[in-house]
């Protein structure tokens, strides 16, 4: 069960890399857990911590300005690689409610939306301008209005983003997909009786 997704206004963490894979978002050695909570401490573990466990000052997540940020800005093809839902669990546990990139891997996007984590794909030029703005002003605020599918970027106009209607409805109202599927059980049973092999 998720919470409804209220309007968002937050500063952002910029990790300006393409093809950020789920092994970077949360390395496999943290996947032996049987719960979905507490994974934020392992978020980007290998980029975030040095060999001795000390935070790397140069990694954006460790910057004092990143504290409290609810938006992560990446690059192209965010979330590629494995199907681990631990990736959105780690991101939301850290406090993120939205990821902005130019494109997302399919499974990551699907997993994110099931966990109240909105994915916003922007055109390359728009993202590049956003990355530049954030690099010069880490405190710059981005606002997201999901019902109208508008994101307002630092110093720029509002930009419309795409999201499928079903994911949007689930996010806005905090619905979970399983509820919809369970409501279809009579249809599923009838279909199964005649069509399933």
């Amino acid at each position, binding site marked *: 069960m998720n919470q409804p997704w209220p309007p968002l206004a937050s500063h952002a963490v910029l990790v300006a890399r393409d093809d950020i894979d789920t092994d970077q978002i949360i390395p496999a050695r943290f*996947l032996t857990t049987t719960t979905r909570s507490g994974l934020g401490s392992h978020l980007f573990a290998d980029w975030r911590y040095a060999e001795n466990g000390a935070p790397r000052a140069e990694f954006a997540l460790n910057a004092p300005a990143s504290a409290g940020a609810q938006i992560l800005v990446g690059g192209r093809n965010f979330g590629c690689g494995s*199907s*681990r*839902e631990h990736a959105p669990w780690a991101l939301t546990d850290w406090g993120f409610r939205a990821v902005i990139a130019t494109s997302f891997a399919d*499974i990551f996007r699907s997993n994110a939306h099931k966990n109240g984590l909105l994915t916003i794909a922007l055109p390359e030029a728009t993202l590049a301008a956003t990355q530049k703005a954030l690099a010069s002003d880490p405190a710059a605020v981005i606002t997201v209005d999901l019902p109208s599918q508008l994101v307002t970027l630092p110093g720029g106009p509002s930009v419309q983003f795409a999201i499928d209607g079903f994911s949007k409805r689930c996010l806005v109202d905090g619905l979970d997909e399983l509820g919809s599927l*369970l409501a*279809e*059980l009579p249809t599923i049973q009838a279909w199964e009786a005649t069509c399933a092999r």
Partner: protein
Amino acid sequence: MMPPRTLFEKVWDAHVVRDGTGDSPSVLYVDLHLVHEVTSPQAFTMLRERGLKVRRPDRTMATMDHSTPTMATGGRITVLDPAASRQLDALAASCAEHGIPLYGLGDDRRGIVHVIGPELGRTQPGMTIVCGDSHTSTHGAFGALAFGIGTSEVGHVLATQCLLQSKPKTMEVRVDGALRPGVSAKDMILAIIAKIGVGGGTGHVIEYRGEAIRALDMEGRMTVCNMSIEAGARAGMIAPDMTTYAWLAGRDQAPSGDAWRDAMGRWHELVTDDGASFDRSVVFDASTMSPMITWGTNPGMAIPVDGRLPIAADVADTSNDRACAYMGFTPGQSLLGQPVDVVFVGSCTNGRLDDLRAAAGVMKGRRVAANTRMLVVPGSQRVKRDAEREGLADIFRAAGAEWRESGCSMCIAMNGDTVASGEYAVSTSNRNFEGRQGKGARTLLASPLTAAASAVAGMVADPRSLL
């Protein structure tokens, strides 16, 4: 009359319980749900919290592969990592509670989920197959629609046997011509990903077609479909044919007798109709392909083994520079002669009997170089037994390689089999992401032939020099 359809569309249409509307995705029926220890515990917890049962345990099958040790003592595997042990226990308890068949530690049918599904004959043409694992695309080699899902969706399938899915687009990857000696299915898929990119298949289901695909055996087809996800594709599929049927016939859980004949009749329909169209098409020539090796930190960063790394001017972004820095390479350099610390042969990509035969063919009568450690991990306990019976294990042991129990092992490095920080590993697995094989590890993906040749040389080597 029905318009011409692609293979994907036929399998999709046959499993749509309720068509999508503008407001809601389609309800898609799942024929077979594969479960492993790492991505399922939270789904079983959710069922318990909501008072739900597993709806079709008969369409569900579980194994233990990701975190399982590959060292046995007196034939027994002992899990030392307490967290991994708790997770394995949780799977066993959930399977017992819900009546799900489990191939657990000690079961001689256990293995990597994508190896045992086909091996047991559970994976069949025309099926929809899902698993909480992105390499589920492997099963598409049989003309199944097979794709990875997250843990929430694992819960959805456990509870309803269905998923809410938007219909993906279709992409044709046609490979004409014939592969040359020393060039394998792994090289083919690495060449394809190098061309279309790690996000090139996003939103699409790929159908691999053409003369070079038809010429592949089932192991090769599984290798190709396995890495569809590394191009970002939702799934990869190959139409079933006589090669498929010959491989499946007589498998433990494949249909037999009249049921086999009925199934064959249906399976023959699983081809893309003449005149059916794909949303995208890409064409390759197998005869121009070389043994491939990755140099960077995603599977698209691959070159012919005798080629050179791209130079800075080749690309506009900084990804290549970052990858070179991580790997300790210089733009424009050759990889031949690069010293190799570890060689890993195994995984759901290249851990089948045919892969081990290829590697053993190179290793026979040769030794692993003194500076190199070689780990051979069969994809399943059955592959292990078959390889031992054929004498492959003896070849690897005589060469100085370590011969292990089955599992995902060093591909995902969560079972204790790791590559040390800074070390170079030539690996037959599927991902060369930073830290994939251990924190700081540097992975070079290649075929079993190239991996074996590199083990013998102690450095990156062209397998054609040893054939």
